[in-house]
């Protein structure tokens, strides 16, 4: 008796909780389309992710100014997964089941994406993932608007080889899956280009590593072997500031040992005096310094929205810009926000990116992007020193890795498979 009573109480309590989060939604269900924003606003990743939350809010606001979507207003539902990976899964479930959002824009780290994947699969919803990542994945419910390794790492290495005549390579990264995989790919690639094993040094450091003295001096030593040396850095955002500070103070000039980074953007540089770093490089698909009208508009809108004209823009923001517009267009094309319809209609959708070209959603749920190599300037911005002539198609499965060179992804019928094995001629994964 007591039990039953208490139980139902618990039930109410729960209902209360669910309601409280969904309340605005519940009665607004009819006239708004809800969009979930799943970015950490606290904890270690807040540094990078909070900006993306603001960017999404801005995009949604602008879309509403343009009259919303399908005649309805868009409504953002913001939650804080607090850089706690299991919490990401819980919050994703809450957004979809409780708040009934039509699509979710979010995640930064690979682990957070991995943690939510099963949820989106199970509840058949949409996730737009805006960050450059290690590839080796293509999931029906996920759209990867950030760069795959072949849209960032490989071109950067090519540039260093051809433009700077680099013959000796340090692959330095934080010890997690993105650097591990990227470095595996690069190692294979470099060897394919005839770089000897002893000319490649691979080094991993823990998250938030703050004492770089030893490694920087190791790099110096490695660089003094009579061959032009460069550092390819996949060091995770947070650890970069102390790394570059050490680099700058140790007097490693870009002319001597250039460092090309894949996770250092305008946001990270904002924490640094870039004076000593001029000439070090980064490879992205977008720089704030890109001088195109559409980019200027975006930056102005951003400054207007944040009311702070020192706020920088960066590559993942552009990825959200592209992803959001693609989703909007796909929904309009399909005339509904129903995930299955959108998944079908979004492939092939082409929207302008901020670098003056157009990006298209490919059947493997990755997008086409230009690759830009930029050098750090003393004003904390990057200056494009090289860019791909055309667009590069995001490659879900790297051709340089044993396990994945035979795999392709194509979510269009009839194949509709994320890991089709061209060797065996059948869908390697859950499809089989």
């Amino acid at each position: 008796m007591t039990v039953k009573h208490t139980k139902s109480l618990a039930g109410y309590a729960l209902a209360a909780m669910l309601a409280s989060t969904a309340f605005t939604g519940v009665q607004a269900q009819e006239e708004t389309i809800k969009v979930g924003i799943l970015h950490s606003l606290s904890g270690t990743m807040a540094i990078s992710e909070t900006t993306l939350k603001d960017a999404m809010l801005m995009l949604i606001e602008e879309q509403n100014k343009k009259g919303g979507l399908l005649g309805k207003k868009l409504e953002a539902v913001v939650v804080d997964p607090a850089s706690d990976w299991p919490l990401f899964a819980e919050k994703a479930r809450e957004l979809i089941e409780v708040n009934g959002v039509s699509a979710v824009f979010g995640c930064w780290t690979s682990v957070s994406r991995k943690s939510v994947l099963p949820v989106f699969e199970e509840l058949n919803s949409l996730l737009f993932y805006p960050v450059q990542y290690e590839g080796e994945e293509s999931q029906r419910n996920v759209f990867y608007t950030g760069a795959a390794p072949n849209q960032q790492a490989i071109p950067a290495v090519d540039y260093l080889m051809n433009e700077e005549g680099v013959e000796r390579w340090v692959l330095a990264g934080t010890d997690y899956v993105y650097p591990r995989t990227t470095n595996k790919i690069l190692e294979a690639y470099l060897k394919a280009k005839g770089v000897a094993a002893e000319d490649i040094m691979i080094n991993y450091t823990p998250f938030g590593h703050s004492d770089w003295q030893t490694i920087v001096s190791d790099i110096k030593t490695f660089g003094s072997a009579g061959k032009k040396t460069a550092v390819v850095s996949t060091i995770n955002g947070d650890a970069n500031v102390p790394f570059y500070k050490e680099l700058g103070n140790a007097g490693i000039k870009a002319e001597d040992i250039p460092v090309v980074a894949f996770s250092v953007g305008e946001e990270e540089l904002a924490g640094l005096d870039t004076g000593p770093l001029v000439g070090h490089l980064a490879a992205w698909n977008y720089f704030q310094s890109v001088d195109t009208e559409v980019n200027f508009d975006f930056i102005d809108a951003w400054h207007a929205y944040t009311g702070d004209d020192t706020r920088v823009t960066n590559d993942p923001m552009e990825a959200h810009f592209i992803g959001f517009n693609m989703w909007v267009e796909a929904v309009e094309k399909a005339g509904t926000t129903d995930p299955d319809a959108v998944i079908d209609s979004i492939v092939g959708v082409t929207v302008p990116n901020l670098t003056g070209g157009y990006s298209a959603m490919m059947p493997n749920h990755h997008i086409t992007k230009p690759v830009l190599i930029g050098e750090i300037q003393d004003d904390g911005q990057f200056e494009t020193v090289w860019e791909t002539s055309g667009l590069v198609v995001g490659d879900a499965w790297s051709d340089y890795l044993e396990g994945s060179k035979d795999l392709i992804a194509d979510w269009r019928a009839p194949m509709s498979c994320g890991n089709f094995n061209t060797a065996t001629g059948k869908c390697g994964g859950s499809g089989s």
Partner: protein
Amino acid sequence: MLTRTRRRSSALGALAVFLVLAVATVTFAGTAAAQSDDAALRTQLNALAAGDFDDTQRQINAIAEAGDPRAAPALEALADGDLYFRRADNAVFITRKDGSDYALRDPLTLEDAGTAGRREVKKIRVNNRLRRVIRTALGTLTLRAPDPAARIEAADAIFKAQDVDSIEPLEAALAAETNTDVARHMREARAAAVLASDLPTPDKLEAIATVAARGDRDARSLLTGISNGPDTALHEAANAAIAKVERVQGLWDTARNIWFGLSLGSVLLLAAIGLAITFGVMGVINMAHGEMVMLGAYTTFVVQSLFRTAAPEYFDYSLIVALPAAFLVAGLVGIAIERGIIRFLHDRPLETLLATWGVSLILQQTVRTIFGPTNREVGNPSFMSGAMEIGQLTITYNRLWIVVFALVVFTALLVAMKATRFGLYVRAVTQNRRMSASMGIRTPLVDALTFGLGSGIAGIAGVALSQIDNVSPNLGQSYIIDSFMVVVFGGVGNLWGTLLGAFTLGIANKFLEPVAGAVLAKILVLVFIILFIQKRPRGLFALKGRAVDA
């Protein structure tokens, strides 16, 4: 690539020869010549504006060929990305950002040439390759510069480029060189060039000796370059030299590790020392300690941004202002916490852990709300940026200052605790609150001040740490665990223990790192601490006697 270098160097060589002659002969023609090719040079400079990197490079070489020293400032500016051209007439200027506009100077006469708006001028783009080209070009241009530093730079540039054709100019310059230090650099540069040249073996052997004498990484890199040449005699000599260099290196590596250890230790010391008061002396398990450090760092940021706007020329003094400010801010917050929360928990110290944990969450979020979640830039004042070379040991100034600073703070704190009346009170209160109170010590005040002191010190640490680490809301979290380790390892309530603990862990870590890698090193250190505590359950400096081992 190579061929290009060749072409360039020959050009430079020619220019250098010309230069030497020019300077050697009396300067009667000097001015006249200058006047005459003034226009020519100007057109050459203006031509820099056109085309892509390769075109620019060709222009630079052309200018170098013309070999007029007055081109040097323009090239310098180009390397520093200060060389712009006016869209209107493609005239090139050396610029300085002046508000939203640019102040223009004539590239030759260096006279003021008014200002231009952002849209009127465009920057001449350079990349690393061009910067290198320019450095070498400048090298030969400035071998005879009046400033010895510039001459050394020039020599080193040639050393790096192994510019064969600079041999003659170098020799000429050497002949005229009076400054022994500069001469040494020039000899080394010459040796480097000789090794790249096709001069007979004896010369090269001699050169190897000269280079080997440097005994540093550059020497090594240069020697490895030739150690696999066809000439056996040569690369035996080279290998011998390399071996010699490496022996020296080995010793320096040890020295390096010790230095790194000390500097890491001083960071740990700074992070932990405030905790040694709040936790060590007062027994408060202060989980908000890290946030005090963070507050200090953010105070630095605020002070610096004030300086940037109000008095940029005094920026170097910003830290001196930031120190007391950080001490006050963190200290006051500390006192507030003590008065508001901790004083109610005297009889249940373990619960301070919960309360202060809550406080740390609140502080983090407060800072996040005020300053935003992203990193904030805290600049190094000039005296803290750059590095000095002691032999082969690169000692970066910010690290050096932090070591010094840590020791100063430590000493000050030691004095405060051991030699002042306040310190006496603190020890009295922590040992026997009731008796101290009955002896007329105002224990509440002492508690508040002690906690304030600990927090203030943490704030000061924040100023120092802001120089080497992120200034973000997570700053504190990254230090809290290490701090506790240090204090406990050293022995709670013993300042010397904290000092020794910090440096032991720091050095241990740095000697492990090259062997085991950064991650394993950290793990091993933690395991070491755990085992050590088994041996000495009360840390490095445990108080003995009946009172304690209860």
